[in-house]
């Protein structure tokens, strides 16, 4: 494309990356039903390809060392009489190597999933088919806005936009009340996170007077963390304290969107949506937005070690917690959902301990292998007549060979077994955590390492269990015996993703691999340079190379988990799961019920809120206020019936009353109020 042959032309065309899928959504949304399936597919897919191509061009410039910035027209712009424009947001887009990476993931994986969906959603009627691609295109547009926005506010636009699309897609089959409910639950829980995001934005506006990443970053570099703020909302706080507060608020937003403790509860329910949606939104892209948010604000987080410690710890706890829940899930998509929650936890450990690049690298590799796993699960469901219970599967390896080998490769990658992509990125995270020294809490890194390693052990176990129950052994039901492989439209994207999940290992190679060593770290580090520099200054990051033993430890852990998983579900300990479930029925029940956190929230938050609303309405509105109003009306009526006695037609008495009244009014107006 000659028009994009220089960086400024690429900058000017950045909006096209977003507008392509947006236009696709508009076309399919308005007339897609009448276009026919082939045309609707063409529109949606064409939009994706167009977006992908321009994204590729933008990425190539970024890879050459440029950063692209398109200023954009003003959007919300308010300035006071003194000319200060604090809340002033433009439609500005920005690509550096961080957003460039996500740009490729979103458009690339997005395109593959659009292809897959063309077959997967073929059972829908024309209207449903067009509606699906409308939402999917719209989602991509929103996600790209999130990634490309040059200010927190524009990121927030995408942030809420993907939440909307998630809501619409989870509830895609809205005639099922449970699916509709799952969609709403996702939106509302995300809104709780967005509340934190908003307060974070307001705080940053109060600190920096701008929502622009570039302007905040530049100002943050010049800050002295211990200096006390003299004016404004945070007067009396240190800069470090104020920034820490803001970063914690943003992280609340991240826990919502990226399904971390305590707001992860919506993601497992989100599996009610069509499986390609689970792959694209609830594994590869949207749920990683929180990780992106932390990485994007690396400079600010580097000023807020307590916030980084929180990110690290929450990530570690979530990683383990979700992995444990995944042990006892029997729904193929639910296992993958908890796995996603857990893997997102790993990413937060990475960005929390200052290994921004490792967190983002895991985001990328996870996008490949988890999208592949979800799409594989979809393929299995297709082949099994929409069955999702892994206890009713078994032996699918022979029936669905392509689905099988892609799933296997992705499982190995997710498990973290040498040498596939997931191993390198996960190990980079854990190794960096172990050797980090958070100034606010020195031990948080090593603690995260221990918890994360346990979570990795769990990951290897539940992934092996999942794989074995689904694909190996003998078919356990009629449906499993007669399962069929999906069409190439579905399996080709699987293969591409499996290959990516494999060759993605190149990105994460450590030192010692010649020109390939630390290739992604070196690529993306410029985006984090300022933050990393600050972390080095305060001794947060480990200087020099790490010892090699964590690499081996990680491998042993993964192998161990796999071994146990195989023994319990494929090998000699086959009777053990049954025995455990019967031996500790309460513990097993608690695990199968996901620790009953939903029920806990219901009892602690939802029901009290409902009761409060009902109580307030009955007591305050109906009894107190309306009771008073109606009471006054009654009294007035009573007074009137007394006063009516005065209206007896006696003109002289009227005149007397008028005279007195006139005197009273004059006295009131001129006397009491007068000079």
């Amino acid at each position, binding site marked *: 494309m000659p028009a994009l042959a220089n960086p400024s032309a690429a900058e000017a065309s950045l909006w096209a990356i977003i507008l392509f899928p947006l236009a696709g959504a508009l076309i399919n949304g308005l007339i897609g039903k009448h276009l026919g399936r082939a045309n609707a597919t063409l529109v949606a897919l064409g939009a994706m390809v167009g977006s992908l191509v321009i994204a590729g061009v933008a990425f190539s410039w970024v890879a050459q060392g440029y950063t692209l910035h398109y200023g954009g027209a003003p959007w919300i712009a308010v300035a006071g009489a003194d000319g200060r424009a604090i809340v002033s947001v433009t439609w500005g887009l920005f690509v550096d190597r961080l957003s460039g990476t996500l740009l490729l993931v979103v458009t690339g994986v997005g395109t593959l999933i659009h292809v897959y969906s063309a077959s997967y959603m073929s059972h829908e009627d024309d209207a449903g088919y067009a509606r699906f691609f409308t939402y999917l295109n719209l989602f991509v547009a929103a996600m790209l806005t999130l990634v490309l926005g040059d200010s927190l506010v524009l990121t927030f636009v995408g942030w809420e936009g993907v939440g*909307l699309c998630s*809501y619409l897609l989870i509830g895609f089959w809205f005639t099922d009340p449970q699916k509709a409910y799952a969609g709403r639950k996702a939106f509302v829980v995300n809104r709780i996170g*967005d509340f934190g995001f908003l307060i974070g934005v307001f705080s940053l506006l109060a600190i920096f007077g701008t929502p622009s990443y570039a*302007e905040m970053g530049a100002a943050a570099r010049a800050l002295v963390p211990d200096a006390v703020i003299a004016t404004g909302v945070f007067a009396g706080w240190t800069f470090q304290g104020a920034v820490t507060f803001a970063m914690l608020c943003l992280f609340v937003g991240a826990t919502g969107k990226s399904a971390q403790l305590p707001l992860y509860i919506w993601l497992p329910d989100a599996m009610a949506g069509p499986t390609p949606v689970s792959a694209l939104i609830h594994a590869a892209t949207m749920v990683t937005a929180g990780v992106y948010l932390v990485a994007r604000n690396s400079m600010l987080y580097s000023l807020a070690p307590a916030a980084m410690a929180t990110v690290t710890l929450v990530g570690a706890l979530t990683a383990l917690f979700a992995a444990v829940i995944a042990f006892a899930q029997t729904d193929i998509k639910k296992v993958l959902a908890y796995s996603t929650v857990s893997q997102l936890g790993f990413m937060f450990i990475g960005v929390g301990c200052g290994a921004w690049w490792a967190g983002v690298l895991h985001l990328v590799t996870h996008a490949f292998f988890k999208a592949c796993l979800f799409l594989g699960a979809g393929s299995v469901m297709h082949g099994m007549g929409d069955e999702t219970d892994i206890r009713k599967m078994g032996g699918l390896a022979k029936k669905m060979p392509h689905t099988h080998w892609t799933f296997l490769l992705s499982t190995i990658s997710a498990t973290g077994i040498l040498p596939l992509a997931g191993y390198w990125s996960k190990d980079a995270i854990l190794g960096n955590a172990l050797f980090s020294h958070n100034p606010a809490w020195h031990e948080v890194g090593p603690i995260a390492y221990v918890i994360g390693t346990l979570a990795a052990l769990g990951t290897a176990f539940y992934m092996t269990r999942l794989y074995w129950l689904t694909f190996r052994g003998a078919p356990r039901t009629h449906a499993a015996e007669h399962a069929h492989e999906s069409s190439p439209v579905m399996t080709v994207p699987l293969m591409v993703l499996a290959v990516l999940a494999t060759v993605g290992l190149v990105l994460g190679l450590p030192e010692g691999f010649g020109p390939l060593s630390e290739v992604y770290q070196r690529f993306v580090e410029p985006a984090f340079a300022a933050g990393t520099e600050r972390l080095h200054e305060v001794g947060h990051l480990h200087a020099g190379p790490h010892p090699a033993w964590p690499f081996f430890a990680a491998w042993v852990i993964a192998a161990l988990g796999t071994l146990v998983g195989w023994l319990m579900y494929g090998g000699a300990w086959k009777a053990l799961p049954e025995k455990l479930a019967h031996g500790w029925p309460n513990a097993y029940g608690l695990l199968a019920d996901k620790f009953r956190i939903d029920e806990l929230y219901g009892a602690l938050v939802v029901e009290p809120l409902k009761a409060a609303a009902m109580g*307030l309405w009955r007591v305050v509105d109906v009894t107190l206020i309306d009771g008073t109003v109606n009471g006054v009306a009654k009294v007035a009526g009573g007074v009137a019936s007394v006063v009516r006695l005065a209206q007896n037609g006696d003109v002289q008495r009227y005149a007397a009353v008028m005279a007195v009244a006139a005197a009273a009014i004059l006295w009131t107006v001129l006397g009491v109020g007068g000079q």
Partner: protein
Amino acid sequence: MNLLSVVTFVPLAGAVLLALIPRDEARQHRALALVVTLVTLALSLGLWLGFDASPAAPEFQFEEKYPWMSSIGIGYHVGLDGVALLLVMLTTVLMPVVVLSTWRAVEDRVKEFMIALLVLETAMIGTFAALDLILFYVFWELILIPMYLLIGIWGSQNRLYATVKFFVYTFAASVLMLLAILFLFFHDGGTFDYVQARAALQVTPEQGKWLFLAFALAFAVKVPMFPLHTWLPDAHTEAPTAGSVILAGVLLKMGTFGFFRYAMPLFPEAALTLRPWIAGLATVGIVYGALMCFVQTDMKRLVAYSSVSHLGFVMLGLAALSAEGLTGSVYQMLNHGVSTGALFLLVGMLYERRHTRLVSEYGGLAQQVPWIATAFVVVTLSSIGLPGTNGFVGEFLILSGTFLSRLAGSTTFATVGSVGVILGAVYMLVLVERVFFGALKKEENKRLADLSVREGFVLAPMIALIVVMGLVPGPFLAPARPAVNRLVQRFQQTEARLNLPTQVGTVETAVAARPPTPLEGAN
């Protein structure tokens, strides 16, 4: 007669014309009413295009002034600042939509109905345009009569209770305002002219406080602010669709406009003292109104309570007294008119089809009426302030403007207000879910017709405004700017005069990462 006066009285002239058409020509009444409102809209576009939003332009434009009862200082004085302009535009845009929406809904006494609507339009525009206190009061009270009739005659079962409650609530509060206006006459050099009175007013702080309260009470009832809101759910529920749309769309803004134009600039000192209370009640209203929505079973009642919540945002932004907060308030007034107006239109369409407002009578409608469902979802998104819709611009400006204001406790107010954003998503999405999602079970709902072409024309402008105002707010923010800055400056002058510590305007940020832009800049 200048353009503003023409725009004000064209609907009244239309009403007179309507009165001359024989009673049984319902089609002609409808058509004429539509034409009159469209002509008014077209004329008002002249106001929109002719308004000069630069800081150097006069405060009130399209000004016209005639002596009326000069011996007692009453004159016909009208003019628009940017905020009044926006609200006049809101009125003239909504009215044709309202008329069109009643095409099938009103079959009884069409002539009187249309006359009432047109009189109402003149009264609403007049309220925003008036620059004379008595003129303002006349228009303000004139609104009550057609509105009283709209609810009392064309309302539903419980309409008499509702309409009397509406009338008494608002009238009782307005009488105090009248007394306050009369009082002003004796303390501003003997005039009812707003501009002169504002400049010349001399009252003691104690008097100012009571006067402010008298005005504020009238306005707070109209807004309505917690705890003076209980007339609203009844009035909305019983009013015909057209009445609800006008009530939510325009009438409530007369209250917030009253604060912006009269109560606050006339008595800045009292406003400074009392604004923590306003902010507090506004914040309570945001959360309280939202909680009330949780337990409503009647759709119109639910939307009415959501208005209490939304108008709480507007009042919070006003109390913040920062450029951002005030601008957001003005914007939110427009937003609420558009999105809540649209919600009432949609509920009205469902009501016309099923003759019930009970949420439980619906369910699964998205299958049967996909276009109505789509429109409802879009309007819902606007109502819950999703970015990309108008609602976000208003809420974001109000909440950030409050957070960044110098009002004591501003961060608490903004934080609690932000909780309203979560709650708003809950009750609106629950409503969508119960009405449109799930299985289509009820037999009666299986025969519902989707959006007709006429209804499409009713909703299209609303949805267009939701999107345009969400993506390109600039043209709608610009007119508000001079008025907002003048109000902030007026308060700053008061502070300086009284030697008060700085408590108005936007805070100094800890770091000034962005240099101030010249005044003609971004806006």
